[in-house]
């Protein structure tokens, strides 16, 4: 089974990893962790040194976060194959394209993430992924995490 897990650097992503690592997974499961760094452009579509620095910094942060998440998942689900990738571009489009490329069976996404609107509203990214995904999608919500994960309800 191939599972694509969409993460950003928010605390909600820590919750997603907690939920995933607590679930029993069949042997032969492959996890692909992805984080998308949105394209950034300066005024009038121009790129200057500050926008490229900002993109580079965001890529480094995402890469570091994914390394930690990957290490945790490998430790907790030792029979699974795990790899990670930072993608650049439109968040929903890149997640959906990656799922198609890998022929994933499941996408795991947060409810809000950094791109969400907060509160009870479904995040824009989660909504877009659910609408356009080629496969089933699990949207992880934090409220019942304590029930699912009594020992690790407060992040990674």
């Amino acid at each position, binding site marked *: 089974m191939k599972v694509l897990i969409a993460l950003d650097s928010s605390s909600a992503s820590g919750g997603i990893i907690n939920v995933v690592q607590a679930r029993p997974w069949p042997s032969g499961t492959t996890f692909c962790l992805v984080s998308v760094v949105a394209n950034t452009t300066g005024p009038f579509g121009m790129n200057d040194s500050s926008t490229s620095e900002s993109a580079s910094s965001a890529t480094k942060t995402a890469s570091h976060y994914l390394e930690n998440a990957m290490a945790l998942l490998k430790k907790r689900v030792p029979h699974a194959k*795990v*790899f990670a990738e930072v993608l650049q*571009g439109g968040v929903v489009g890149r997640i959906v394209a990656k799922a198609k490329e890998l022929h994933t069976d499941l996408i795991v996404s947060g409810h809000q993430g950094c791109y969400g609107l907060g509160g009870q509203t479904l995040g824009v990214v989660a909504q877009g992924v*659910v609408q356009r995904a080629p496969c089933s999608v699990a949207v992880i919500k934090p409220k019942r995490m304590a029930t699912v994960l009594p020992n690790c309800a407060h992040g990674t």
Partner: protein
Amino acid sequence: MKVIIEIEDRIYGEAIVNFIATQKWDSGTSFELFHVLDREPTGELISELCCPTAADLIEQEKTAAQELLVEMELKLLKVVPNVATEQKLIYGRPKEKLLEVIEDTKADLLIVGSHGRTGFTRFLLGSVSMAVLSQAPCSVLIVKLPQKANTNSAQQQRTDKETNVPVASATK
């Protein structure tokens, strides 16, 4: 772990059961299957209709829904034999009823089928699914029908300038 499954029709019911079969489930997991009928076959309604055919149709709809639930429960037990299952037919507006069921049962996970099977509608999630996804207090799994392999490549070429940065890759 308590899992609520909305069985709306046979096609998505089977897709959900097939998806569940690909997963591992703890023996303490319980599955509750629900089908929501949006009108209750009360005596009042039937007498208002004053039409035996309509009453028959309502009764047939109820029977068909009950048979569907039993069929899906049996299929579920076949693929995950060591879990507790229940099934129930409920009446009311699907969105409100599903949210009520989640609250009443303190469910950890809701599984629903996405809707729209071919062409453009394949990209649209049903309004009930979207509303429940947005408002449910628990995690939600939206099961889609398996895609035909040959539709992948044609629709893939959307988008954005792409750059992939591999972080690392490892097995075990």
